[in-house]
């Protein structure tokens, strides 16, 4: 990851966003309800970093990205990108940024990849010669040279994402916004996308990313802001977040066994240091049951293996996992990141 500059390239101060939704109550009556999508969001993003907004679905991540990309106006608050006000200087802001907001749907499927890039390049007032050079550079870098002249509708999902990513880089943006860039990708394509993001960042582009995938956030980010119910609840480097919020060093252990261990789980929970123990029953043929154990002490692992041995259970394998951002989120909110929080509390307002 590139060296960070102390001068913030994105500065968000006390941003609020409230949506007002209409609900018909009978034929003549309409009730208006407010949903507070963002509440007092204040963040600084530094030049050259990968900044990740991590939060569950419905936390307000996309709303914030849309405000920064000038697609939405905040209800209150200010935001600057490279010193430009996203409210009063939106046209200038749009010249130095780019975004991938709708994933594979960001491009025209009836056109070829090249036609798409030529079109979007022109919308950035680029010289046709520069556009062609950029297309060559991007198609080589993203390995889409062989498909660039084919209609986008014939691309695979991963290839469509690559083209959308190329479109987002066509104008060499100073800040690149990526809204859930791997959300619907298969693991291999998601990996490729993450590599592309890293390479882009290494070339000096500041990346503002949203995701609800904690592994992705952990792997890519210089800084992570955790957003929950429209509020920033923590901002720091991934390691600092773990250090700060996981005061107890938890170890997640996965022990693969040869048969179900009904009745032994309570014994494991009683072991000193063990905070949680559960059994996973295989869903398919040829798979084995496993025991998921969370402990604060190394000794508990040896003790649990010994209990399994005493009960004639063969251990087929054992793996440990370090604490993750999921644990940080759990420690902060008492919920997991996979929970959908899009059903917000709505407040009825006068019309």
């Amino acid at each position: 990851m590139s060296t960070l500059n102390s001068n913030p390239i994105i500065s968000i101060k006390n941003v609020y966003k409230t949506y007002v939704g209409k609900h018909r109550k009978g034929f003549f009556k309409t009730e208006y309800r407010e949903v507070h999508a963002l509440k007092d969001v204040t963040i600084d993003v530094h030049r050259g970093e990968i900044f990740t907004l991590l939060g569950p679905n419905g936390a307000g991540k996309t709303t914030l990205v849309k405000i920064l990309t000038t697609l939405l106006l905040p209800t209150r608050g200010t935001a600057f990108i490279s010193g430009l006000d996203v409210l009063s200087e939106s046209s200038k802001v749009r010249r130095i940024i780019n975004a991938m907001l709708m994933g594979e749907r960001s491009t025209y499927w009836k056109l070829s990849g090249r036609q798409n890039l030529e079109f979007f390049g022109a919308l950035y007032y680029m010289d046709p010669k520069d556009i062609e050079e950029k297309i060559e550079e991007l198609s080589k870098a993203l390995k889409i040279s062989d498909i660039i002249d084919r209609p986008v509708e014939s691309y695979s999902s991963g290839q469509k994402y690559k083209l959308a990513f190329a479109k987002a880089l066509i104008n060499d943006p100073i800040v690149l916004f990526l809204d859930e860039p791997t959300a619907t990708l298969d693991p291999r394509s998601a990996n490729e996308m993450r590599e592309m993001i890293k390479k882009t960042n290494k070339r000096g582009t500041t990346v503002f990313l949203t995701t609800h995938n904690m592994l992705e956030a952990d792997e890519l980010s210089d800084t992570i802001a955790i957003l929950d119910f429209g509020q920033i609840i923590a901002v720091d480097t991934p390691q600092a977040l773990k250090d700060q919020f996981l005061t107890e060093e938890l170890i997640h252990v996965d022990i693969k066994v040869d048969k179900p261990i009904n009745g032994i789980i309570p014994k494991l929970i009683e072991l000193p240091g063990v905070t949680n123990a559960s059994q996973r029953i295989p869903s398919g043929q040829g798979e084995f049951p496993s025991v998921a154990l969370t402990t604060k002490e190394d000794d508990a692992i040896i003790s649990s293996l010994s209990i399994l041995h005493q009960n004639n259970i063969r251990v087929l394998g054992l793996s440990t996992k370090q604490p993750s951002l999921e644990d940080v989120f759990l420690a902060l909110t008492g919920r997991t990141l996979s929970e959908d929080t899009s059903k917000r509390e709505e407040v009825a307002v006068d019309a």
Partner: protein
Amino acid sequence: MHNEVFLPSKTTFRGNITIVKSIVKQQLAVLRAYWGASLMSILIPLMFVLIPIMIGRSVSPNYEQNFQQNTGATDAEAYLVIGAVFWAMMVGILWDFGTYLREEQFQGTLESVMVTPVSRYVLALGRGLFSLTFGLVSSFISITIGLLIFSPDVLFSFTFVRIMTVFLLIIVSYFPMIGMSLLVGTLVIKFKDIESVINLLQWVLGTLMGVFFSIAALPWGFRVVALLFPPTWGLNDARAILLSTPPVVVMLGFSNYTQGLLLDTAITLAIGIFWSLVGFFLFIRILEHAKKGSGLGEY
């Protein structure tokens, strides 16, 4: 926070022209992918005009004489063909331009375009120019085929100057249609699924512009409303040039034919400017309004 920023590109006039060209080029590429739709836009007015022509021929072999008495047109079928093609062109704009943003919303490309620095006016202009070019070409083909089938004598009597004048008239009455289509576009964005409203509007438009009859046949209340529509003037003037029927102001009592035609064109232009300004103003307002709410990406 206010430090000097290097802006990599300049939004010059020449740059905007290049963008308009790119939008037209992009739309043409999309059109190539949907070539069947282009064919339909040529065939629809021809199929549409068959109905009144066949009714006329069935009612009386001398229906053209009666038609001439009421409209001043020496060739009823040429009159109907021109009406149908003009109507199809205007309806095409209404649909094409009115549902432009909605289509982009569905495709998912609207936000990709809106996040670029290009002005919304330039976008509308580019899309409008494509629509005009497409409308002119398909109308030219339709009218040529229609007249070849129903009134070849009229077709061969057209001079180059007359055809060019009609093209000019179409352009004059076309831009106000962009304004009106933008109005429809704002309705589509505001109220979402109102395709049925556009469906109804196209028939209202056809009736008011006098697609198969002279607007003199309309009850006076309808005639007043019809005169507020630029296509009414455009169509009647196109017929006046090609078929020597009376221009609108002559129908209303003005005596000089040539001056009447010029006056008609001036009025068309004035109404056109009014509708275009209203349309563009509301269009931009609705875009700004959407930004205050949940944005244009929401559908």
